[in-house]
């Protein structure tokens, strides 16, 4: 079988039983776990403390030996040196050498990957810039805060431009700024075709970045699927609009009652996410050049982090076709390349809501689409890059996506 066809990660009946001093079985930390992570996926491993996430990851990396079952990475055992050279790993805590400074740390790991000295030096500088620690690069790691150490931890995981990145609690110990940056990095890496396995018990982190998740409890897989599959609330509908008057809301209630014979469950002003508020505040302070002893704003993802195991041409082609739908040859919306067709949306409720009285919907949403471009709500789905930070919508788009998807059906991502 061609290596490109193999899953990046596959476990079959993976089991780990910890023993006591007398070699008696004590705790089954992982029990008969079957995982498959395909190329380009951002895979979330969820579970409460003690659910077996870290044990699973350690077996994936060959740091623990399975009691039963098997692990393969790129179709080979995890202890294989060639396999390890394609992996980046950020452990749950940044287990770094306290006596080394940031450059020395990255240099050590770069040497283990046999990076040429010039290439190593370039990558180190770019990674330091990416994690915002260039100014602190000469300080010993032992003097770093936990968040700063995590950033160096992330940098070391990326030094080899890994195809497969395993992140164990990547935002643990990070401030909201760092958490956001880490998530941005994950998104950008994913957009470059990297495969990422993310373990966390911070559900928001996983929800923000993962395509698929597996939820572990008691060492067993309890649920698995795409985020949308798992989070879809098929029996409810959410509509988010600019601030409406009480009179309009009353009309909406009446309309819903008349058309659907149902009452609205709740109506109120939505709250912004605290993460967004925090980011806006910090960005404003950074724009005003307020001095800080901590990390600087992280830089862009280094260009050496390539497009993972995918064919770069394919990615570019996908992006190009998505950005220029007309280039696909027809005047209509671009057809999905590999994803199954999105289920047809029942648009009648939305259209009625947005056109009743002619003034309920915001002006932007009523602007007609260009003649050769499909209306936004019916656009062909694709692996959608998140909007830039400054333009990030306050609206949780998954709700709208959920609204226009049929319950129980995959969105094909």
């Amino acid at each position, binding site marked *: 079988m061609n290596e490109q066809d193999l899953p990046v990660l596959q476990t079959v009946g993976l089991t780990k039983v*910890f023993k*006591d001093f007398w070699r008696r079985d004590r705790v089954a930390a992982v029990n008969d776990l079957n995982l498959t992570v395909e190329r380009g996926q951002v895979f979330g491993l969820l579970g409460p403390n003690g659910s077996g996430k870290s044990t699973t990851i350690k077996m994936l990396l060959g740091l623990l030996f399975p009691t039963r079952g098997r692990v393969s990475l790129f179709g080979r055992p995890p202890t294989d040196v060639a396999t390890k050279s394609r992996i980046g790993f950020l*452990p749950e805590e940044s*287990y770094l050498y306290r006596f080394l400074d940031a450059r020395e740390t990255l240099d*050590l790991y770069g040497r283990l*990957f046999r990076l040429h000295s010039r290439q190593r030096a370039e990558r180190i500088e770019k990674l330091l810039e990416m994690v915002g620690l260039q100014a602190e690069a000469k300080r010993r790691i032992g003097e770093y805060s936990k968040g700063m150490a995590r950033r160096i931890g992330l940098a070391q995981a990326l030094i080899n431009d890994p195809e497969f990145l395993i992140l164990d609690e990547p935002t643990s110990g990070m401030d909201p700024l760092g958490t956001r940056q880490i998530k941005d990095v994950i998104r950008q890496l994913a957009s470059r075709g990297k495969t990422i396995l993310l373990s966390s018990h911070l559900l928001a982190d996983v929800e923000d970045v993962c395509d698929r998740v597996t939820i572990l409890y008691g060492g067993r897989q309890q649920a698995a699927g795409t985020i949308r599959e798992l989070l879809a609330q098929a029996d409810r509908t959410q509509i988010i609009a600019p601030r409406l008057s009480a009179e309009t809301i009353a009309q909406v209630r009446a309309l819903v009652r008349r058309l659907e014979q149902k009452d609205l469950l709740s109506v109120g002003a939505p709250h912004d996410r605290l993460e967004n508020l925090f980011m806006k505040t910090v960005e404003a302070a950074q724009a005003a050049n307020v001095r800080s002893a901590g990390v600087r704003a992280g830089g862009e993802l280094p260009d050496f982090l390539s497009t993972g195991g995918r064919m770069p041409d394919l990615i570019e082609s996908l992006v190009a076709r998505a950005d220029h739908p007309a280039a696909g040859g027809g005047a209509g919306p671009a057809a999905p390349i590999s994803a199954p067709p999105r289920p047809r949306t029942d648009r009648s409720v939305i259209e009625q809501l947005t056109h009743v009285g002619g003034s309920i919907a915001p002006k932007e949403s009523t602007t007609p689409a260009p003649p050769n471009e499909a209306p936004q709500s019916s656009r062909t789905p694709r692996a959608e890059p998140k909007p830039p930070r400054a333009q990030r919508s306050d609206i949780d788009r998954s709700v709208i996506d959920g609204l226009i998807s049929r319950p129980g059906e995959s969105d094909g991502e």
Partner: protein
Amino acid sequence: MSRIWAIARHTLAEGLRLKIAHVFLAFIAVVVVGLPVTLKGESAISDAVQTYLSFSSRSLGVILSLLTIFLSRSLSDEFVNRQMLVLMTKPIQRWQYVVGKWLGMVTLNTILLFMSGVGVYVGATILAGMKPRDEADAGKLKNELLTARHATSFVPPDFSQLAAQAYQERLETGAYAEVAAIVPSEERTRIAKEFESQWRTVPVMETRLFEFTEVRCRRSPDKTLQIRYKAEVYHFAPDEILRCEWIVGNPDKGTPVYYLPRRDVIQRYQTMSVPTDAVAPDRTLTVALTNRNPFEGERQEYNTVSFLSNDDVQVLFEVGSFAGNLVRQLALTWCRLSFLAALAVLLACVFSFPVACLIGLTFLAMTSMAAFVTDALIFFDEDVGVPGLFQSVVQVLYKVVYFIIPDFSRYNGADLLVDGRNVTLRWVLEGVARLVLCGTTFLLLIACLLFQRREVAEVSV
């Protein structure tokens, strides 16, 4: 190799930054640099140099051995602090890691040994450059300390034929008539030993001839060799002085003969210098001793001189330089440190820091005592008779342990260096073969096997 070297570089950097390493480095600095300053007040420069060489070479070995044992922490800490979790996800084989750790320790030791060796050489040279007390002081410094001399001991004559004759005579004369059972070979050996012990004693006014072979020095009236001896004298004179005359040379072989009347303190090593032209062209040196005791009024039989060991009379002649000798002595130390580094790596692969360290220190103590324990066991075997069960078990245990553990004292050239005696290249090569090629390889092999089977993220519940 680049990955092994990456680990080695890292271990080296860690070793140089460990606080405990700084303490040991401070000790080395005090010994190598500080000692010459404090020794300037010694009356004879040769004594100062000898003291300096003795302290510096011995303490260097001890300090670096301890440092090597403590460096096992570098590896065991990586388990405890979990840096291993990151390291082992990088593309490195476990054996490469083990070898890299060992190489890092050995590189650190090599650097420290080199720097210390340069320091010792410079320190000794500075001390030796000071004004000697007298000519004897200058001579001792030049000919007996800052040099590399080969030592040859005397070999007693073979008395087996004489013993066989004597046995036959005694047999024929009926000397054994009343002896119940006698084993001829044992009796002949006993007689030979009896003759040899008689030969080793020199009664008053008698002369004993010692023949030394393979004295490979350049023959010249301007160059000297040394004859060193230690005489046992029972019932010695009240002033504890041995009066004797040494005659060196062999006119039959065309060499000059040197007469050396001596008055020396008994039971202590004495050295006398003789021109090297006393050595015959066939590289033999003939030395005769005439016992000129007794002290006035003493009975003659109380002043017999004895040389119990072959080493009690030795000829020492120059075969190399002090610098070369120092390098070879440091090479032997390096062999020991290399072995200890492998041991430290092995222990750290299995145990955590304090346990690994304590076992390492115990091992170090045992290797240093190996010669003593071996002698004790021989004594035990010969003199105690039939041992009990406990003693037998202890004996077997010791023998097994000391079969595995090398005798470090055998690979320590400090005594020779201090004595201006040659640390031979053959000896160094033996150290390399036994300690590095065999011992170190064996230990690293076990370390690799154990580490290969160890779960890096092991959890005990």
